[in-house]
């Protein structure tokens, strides 16, 4: 009898080991495909340019872009442009996110204030924030303030709308449970509404960091003499496509890095959402 049981146990172990191995193999394959696709596209691009299937003066091949990047880094142009863009984006994002979250949460709990301001904010959000730039330039001149404010504007509205919606659509059963266990007034806000709203607020942060990068790039196209947006625009005007590609690639990498940073913060701040998905 025990022999049979042990035999069945061994058979199950073997089956489980087999399943695990299949799973591992599939994961490895998927990971290598994710890397292989962009690498082959780059190789194809390089080949197409080398064989003159495309005009390498317009479609600078990857190796040419890498060379241009090396020059821009050693001359200090790229680091200083990156720093300028990052500074504007960070300052604007932090101010806009803090303000938008605070105002959104406040409107969520204060009904008269919501009635007074929420429709106005929704209407303002419908105006593309970049369209505000000329007005900001008229008011503040071509300085840092106007550029940072375009980022503030986009971040503010996204966060205001997300925070407001988090409070407005809060699970009433949780509010009730909070009330039943003694959370009222500021305690209700601090221990129930605020932590429960964090996932929606983080969604807003992820969206607005990407939008902020779009807006600051566009702003730098037209109203700046440094920054990554200026690098791209200026390279186009000087017909230096290789530098233009370097600027575009840097913006792309920056976008990925910033989104990853916000996601990382999210995992720390709202670990319960992350764990739920597994």
């Amino acid at each position: 009898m025990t022999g049979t049981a042990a035999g069945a146990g061994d058979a199950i172990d073997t089956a489980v080991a087999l399943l695990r191995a299949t799973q591992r193999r599939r994961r490895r394959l998927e990971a290598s495909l994710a890397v292989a696709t962009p690498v082959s596209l780059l190789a194809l691009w390089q080949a197409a340019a080398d064989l003159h299937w495309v005009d390498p003066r317009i479609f600078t091949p990857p190796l040419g872009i890498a060379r241009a990047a090396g020059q821009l880094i050693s001359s200090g142009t790229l680091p200083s442009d990156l720093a300028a863009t990052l500074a504007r984006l960070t300052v604007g994002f932090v101010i806009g996110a803090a303000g938008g979250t605070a105002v959104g949460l406040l409107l969520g709990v204060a009904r008269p204030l919501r009635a007074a301001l929420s429709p106005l904010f929704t209407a303002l959000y419908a105006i593309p924030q970049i369209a505000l730039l000329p007005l900001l330039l008229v008011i503040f001149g071509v300085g840092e303030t106007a550029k940072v404010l375009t980022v503030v504007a986009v971040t503010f509205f996204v966060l205001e709308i997300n925070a407001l919606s988090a409070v407005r659509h809060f699970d009433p059963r949780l509010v009730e449970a909070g009330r039943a266990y003694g959370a009222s007034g500021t305690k209700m806000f601090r221990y129930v509404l605020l932590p429960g709203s964090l996932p929606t607020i983080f969604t807003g942060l992820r969206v607005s960091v990407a939008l902020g990068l779009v807006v600051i790039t566009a702003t730098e196209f037209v109203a700046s003499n440094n920054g990554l947006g200026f690098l791209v625009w200026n390279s186009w005007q000087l017909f230096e496509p290789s530098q233009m590609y370097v600027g575009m690639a840097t913006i792309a990498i920056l976008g990925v890095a910033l989104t990853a940073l916000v996601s990382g913060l999210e995992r720390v701040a709202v670990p319960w959402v992350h764990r739920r998905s597994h």
Partner: protein
Amino acid sequence: MEVDLLPGAERAPAMRGSPALEVRGVSKAFVGRAGETTLALADVDLDVQRGTFVSLVGPSGCGKSTLLRILGGLEQPSTGEVRSAARQTTSGLPAVAFVFQDYGLFPWLNVVENVAFGLRMAGVGKRERHQRARAWLDRLGLASFERSYPEQLSGGMRQRLSLARAFVTDPEVLLMDEPMAALDAQTRLLLQEDLVRLWEETKKTVVLVTHSLDEAVLLGDRVVAMTARPGRVKLDLPVELPRPRDAGTVTGTAFSHLKATLWTALRDEVRRSLEHS
């Protein structure tokens, strides 16, 4: 460190017999979105003696959950009053604890933090509240899950968690709103046994709203049956089955008689509620 789990058990028997909750002429009207009014409760009188377990049954929509929420102060009656000996506590802890059908657990708090929530709101220090929470988690077999989040637990475990959250504040009165309704039949049996055991150990004053006549009779010292909307008390049935009770209690003849009496009283009300909805 000794954790006093059962102060209620020592206190309650001496004071048994005096009402913990007195409901006098309570009515409740709601105004809907379209401006229509619904009378949920009409002139309800009810006494709940200290240390007794009262089951509240009635057709869907008869206002039994509303009555429970009024008992717990989550809702104000339109007329009448609720006198609650329990509400006059000075400890800062709520004297009433709720167990909800959908658990009402906070997804952002882990298991031990969920249990300790009421204590935290009452200003109990972190060490003490976690110690008290852990003692109850132990008692309900959840000790190894204290760092998990509610979403990671099964329905039965979540409801145990919400029982722990209610008991840890050592309330005078426990109000339970269909706590088993979302559970599968077997888990439900297990939780009913948990609840019988906990009640027999602590002798809290309990009001339990339930759809299940079995559950009402198995757990209650009394079963109060309500009419279709607007809810009034139709029948107040003492359940004199011996304790301790367990899953075997439901097989006795006395149990069947009580259930039959209840059903006779309820049948017309349930029909009425069907015809009106």
